[in-house]
């Protein structure tokens, strides 16, 4: 594709290349695409490949022994505490996904079917939190749920409770609440888009054929919106399995997630190969669970139809 790779210096070669370039859409396209492509290869693909390579190496003191070994994966699989924190992470992320999608669906439905005017105002209102600092939103929940926080001090001032409620902060529930709030926009937008796309005449047809409102929803609207629901679930589930900030701020000892173990291995212990193996094996496991989930959802859709 590039001139430098061609050995020929025969006259007319560059003219032919130029003619090819002018004729070929693909060549023109790739010339335009190459800056962003090269950037992402260097800053994304190469680092991820290096991460895989590192996971087959061994940390010896401050040096890395580059002999190929699968021992790091054995270390990860053989350590019970990693299994525990991994499954806790999966549990927390599943709960977050369920809560977030469950709350977002009616909201998206309302904007798609209920809002007649100023739809874009609703959409902007629902997207703003997505763009604002995630760190600060998680921090806000720490302030709210804290031992001396907004909820406890508020309820005590009102005389509803005498002692602060200790179950609010530093546990899994606090992590689920904070993440469900943080990822709301991820759920609403894909569901909204799939609802908005539904051909309204299909609903009319269902009504003409005698379906009531609920039957219409379950047999027409809901199955047609499932791509949005699945998309939203993935957009929440996958990133939250790697979340670091929220468990650190509000999770306490029982709310810790896998990202913490990875961070410790990289920035505190300094065992990068083990950290790489832990990160990659958890992501692979997450990937398998996601595929199972998507397959199950597709089978469920077939059942409904």
């Amino acid at each position, binding site marked *: 594709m590039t001139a430098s790779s061609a050995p020929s210096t025969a006259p007319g070669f560059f003219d032919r290349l130029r003619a090819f370039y002018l004729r070929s859409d*693909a060549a023109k396209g790739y010339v335009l695409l190459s*800056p962003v492509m090269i950037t992402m290869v260097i800053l994304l693909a190469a*680092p991820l490949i290096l991460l895989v390579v590192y996971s087959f190496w061994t940390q010896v003191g401050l040096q890395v022994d580059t002999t190929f070994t699968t021992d790091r994966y054995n270390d990860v699989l053989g350590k019970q505490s990693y299994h525990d924190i991994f499954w806790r992470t999966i549990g927390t992320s599943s709960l977050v996904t369920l809560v977030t999608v469950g709350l977002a669906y*009616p909201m998206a439905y309302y904007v798609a079917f209920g809002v007649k005017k100023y739809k874009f105002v609703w959409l902007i209102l629902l997207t*703003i939190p997505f763009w604002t*600092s*995630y760190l600060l939103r998680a921090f806000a929940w720490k302030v709210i749920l804290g031992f001396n926080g907004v909820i406890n001090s508020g309820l005590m001032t009102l005389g509803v409770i005498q002692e602060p409620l200790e179950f609010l902060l530093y546990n899994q529930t606090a992590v689920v609440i904070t993440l469900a709030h943080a990822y709301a926009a991820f759920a609403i937008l894909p569901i909204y888009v799939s609802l908005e796309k539904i051909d309204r005449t299909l609903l009319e047809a269902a009504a003409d054929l005698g379906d009531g409102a609920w039957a219409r929803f379950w047999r027409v609207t809901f199955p047609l919106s499932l791509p949005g629901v699945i998309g939203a679930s993935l957009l929440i589930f996958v990133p939250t399995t*790697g979340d670091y900030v929220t468990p650190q701020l509000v999770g306490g000892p029982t709310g810790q997630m896998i990202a913490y173990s*990875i961070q410790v291995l990289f920035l505190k212990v300094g065992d990068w190969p083990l950290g790489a193996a832990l990160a990659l094996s958890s992501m692979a496991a997450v990937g398998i669970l996601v595929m199972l989930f998507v397959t199950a959802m597709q089978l469920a859709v077939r059942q409904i139809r």
Partner: protein
Amino acid sequence: MTKPTRAAKRMGDPGGFLAIFALAYLLFLYVPVLFLPVFSFNDSIFVTFPLKGFTTKWYEQAFADQDMLRALTASLQVGAIASVTATILGLLGAKAVTRYRMPGQNVVTGLIMMPLFIPEIMLGIALLILVNTLFIPLGLFTITIGHIMLCTPFAMAVLTSRLDGFDKSLEEASMDLGESPWMTFWRVTFPLVAPGIISSMLLSFIVSFDEFLLSFFLQGQQPTLPVYIWSQLRFPNKLPGVLALGAVILIVSCILVVIAEWVRQIGTDERKVGVA
């Protein structure tokens, strides 16, 4: 698709109950965040009810902090470079994918969009390994390249959707009427694409400015603002200052988002039909 009748348009219309739910949902989204500005004016070091009295001293304290100002400057620099670079890359890339058909195009777009679907901690450790392998010292430079990688998919998405609705025949008409390619770009293409560029730069800037985890892994001596805020969270006496700073950041980014979304819709008919 046949044109829906009026009855069909009303189909699936939820009742008033869902409107109440929608309002409650908006409260759930916004009220927790509103506690930051509320307590940032509270004359007490503790974030507790009842409110003690009005003060602006936390703002004065926060903005007199030299470390905070240095971190703010660092974040502004990183954000400016990352958003401009990501937007240039995204503009060229968006032009390529909307105008030309290329073999393997989906693989490349998949790669560009990948950072949106991978947990950030993976991106952080992978980049840390990269800069370590290349012997690049950790610092604002490493943070900046991380942010460029993270902002590019956002820029690409915003600009692709902008260029997708772009009518190619307008450019051709301009060329047919005798304008040079350069003048065609300035007088036809640019005005049509400019809202997308502005929106992409603003949104990329916000993504970079708020980004914590990548910066946390790639930081050297000089932290960015979110990394600085993170380090302050350990000290209870710094809490009110963080509240004040957080309130300012939230309000400024809300304003920027509204501008970005508003600009993005200029010249499109999305306002009538919603984001398709």
